[in-house]
């Protein structure tokens, strides 16, 4: 199999703080061609920073200290600005959570998408309008010809996200990074957008790196899942194994604090006590140890290495047993 994305040993540090304020800390992640990989985590776990690092879009305060990010076999960290511009959009592109703030409010949908096509030489001024309509039809924008002439504020949240996806697909990327693409949308619209992403994957053969906090979305969409905690991946594996038999206590905890389908409503929900650590506050041992029901002395001293004895890989001294 061919990896479209291969991240190894990535570490990124928040500038201006103490040396150890790592927001991404030793992250390995691969995405194969055509695969849907979900990167799951809570706010502050570093999942969006991981997404931004792939296209070198990290905020100025955060810089990468170690690791490699191979996108289509080439290290994005060694690319000059011109090559990067070329790669963004054609190799990989991003769909953000809030389409209202990531689309230009002063440009019509048509102009924004056409700009992308023109810059990358995918169309001429003459052919661009037709290609824009094709793209809008690809993302099933209702009434595409009329919508193309409208501004983002004329569109509903769901339609704006469709426009955003059309923009991201304009240069036929091999990897689509979707950063919480439906978190701002209602459930019925969320379902439409997620289904559209899956259809596009099937039709265009691109891979999707889906960044989300919602395990329900993961279950519906992903082929593989990677769970992030405190800037690192603590467990990864095929979706069925990972969700049905989580090995890492954090994955286990995330799943068990969801209100269960047929549980007695008088039963208390399982809680994960405490809060995720601040970047830089974990100096040694497993970052989840302070909140973990299974931790003991070794957990606070030695950070566990990634191991596997089945389909899932996990970093834990005391994993839940395989079924």
């Amino acid at each position, binding site marked *: 199999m061919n990896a479209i994305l291969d991240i190894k040993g990535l570490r990124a540090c928040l500038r201006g703080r103490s040396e150890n304020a790592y927001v991404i800390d030793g992250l390995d992640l691969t995405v194969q061609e055509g695969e849907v990989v979900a990167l799951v985590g809570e706010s502050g776990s570093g999942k969006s920073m991981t997404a931004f690092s792939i296209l070198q879009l990290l905020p100025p305060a955060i810089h990468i200290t170690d690791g490699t990010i191979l996108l289509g076999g080439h290290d994005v960290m060694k690319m000059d600005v011109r090559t990067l511009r070329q790669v963004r959009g054609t190799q990989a592109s991003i769909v953000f959570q809030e389409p209202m703030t990531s689309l230009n409010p002063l440009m019509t949908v048509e102009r924004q998408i056409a700009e992308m096509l023109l810059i990358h030489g995918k169309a001429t001024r003459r052919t661009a309008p037709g290609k824009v309509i094709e793209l809008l039809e690809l993302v099933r924008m209702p009434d595409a010809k009329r919508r193309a002439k409208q501004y983002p504020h004329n569109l509903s949240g769901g339609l704006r996200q469709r426009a955003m996806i059309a923009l991201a697909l304009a240069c036929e990327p091999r990897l689509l990074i979707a950063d919480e693409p439906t978190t701002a949308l209602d459930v019925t619209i969320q379902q439409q957008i997620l289904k559209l992403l899956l259809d596009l994957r099937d039709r265009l053969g691109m891979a999707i790196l889906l960044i989300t906090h919602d395990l329900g979305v993961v279950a519906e969409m992903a082929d593989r899942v990677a769970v992030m905690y405190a800037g690192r991946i603590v467990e990864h594996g095929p979706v069925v194994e990972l969700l049905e038999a989580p090995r890492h206590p954090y994955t286990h905890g*995330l799943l068990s604090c969801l209100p269960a389908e047929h549980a007695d409503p008088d039963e208390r929900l399982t809680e994960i006590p405490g809060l995720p650590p601040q970047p830089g506050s974990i100096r040694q041992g497993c970052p989840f140890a302070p909140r973990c029901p299974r931790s003991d002395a070794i957990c606070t001293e030695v950070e566990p290495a990634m191991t596997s004895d089945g389909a899932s890989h996990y970093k834990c001294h005391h994993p839940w047993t395989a079924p």
Partner: protein
Amino acid sequence: MTDDLLVIRDLRKTFSTPSGALTAVSQVSLSIKRGETYALAGESGCGKSTVGKIVAALVKPDAGSITLDGNDLTALSPRQLRPLRRKVQMIFQDPFSSLNPRATVRRIIEEPLIVHGLGNRGERRRKVAEMMDRVGLRPEAADRFPHEFSGGQRQRIGIARALILNPDLVVCDEPVSALDVSVQAQILNLLKDLQRELGTAYLFISHDLSVIRHMADRIAVMHLGQLVETAPRASFWANPTHPYSRALIAARPDPNPRNRLQDKPVLEGELPSPFEKRKGCDFRSRCPLAFGLCAEVDPPLRPSAPDHYAACHLVDEPDSRNHTAAA
């Protein structure tokens, strides 16, 4: 019924906006019993938050009545309303913008006591400490400011503020939507514990049916300003009747990896504009079961089971249920 705490009849609220009149709430009637959790479910813009604000007397309705313990709130002057406001408090969605950033936690939690002239300084201090302890905050933290707390802790501050007056009803407007799942469970457990201890009723407003399933004794589903279904917990989950309720339940992402999106039906079509004058059922443009009558007549709420009502023309047809399962 004698144990009804709050009774709403035919509530209507229209906002005038630059794009025209927007009817946010129309013909909403419901009643909440003492100590129960009544959930209002629906998507953004359906009017559920407006109902919550009207109940908390933060927005005045255009028509309809709200009776709290036998007092019609809409008929009272602001002065007469004041003592009754103590009985209804509110918890907001965003724990970041709903707390005064310049006030200490103590000040935030004791403010309702000051406003209502309750207790002296010493008593208020003691009550604040007691309440902080009850919601799981260390009373020593009373002199700190909201920015020093995480989202979950801030929501605890908001809960302490709402409960310090010992209200009969708390309007919880999306109380956990801004929180991570691990913290969400903490807050939901806290709300249930407090209800058990204090007997407070909740009007629980949420778009998340999984959370509602866990919390609510009674459920009302709203769609474009109207109630389309109301039912007790057991009846609602056993037999969700309105096609919109069923679509919402089906669209809820389910963390079962054998239940893949490809195999699920997806609700297509667009919502009608809330500004336009509409005829017939508002859901028909997206409804898989819509037929001729739906475009003509707006269906009223009709009983489909004991205490269970749905606003759909198909409610009484016995085979409509099988019909939907196939659709």
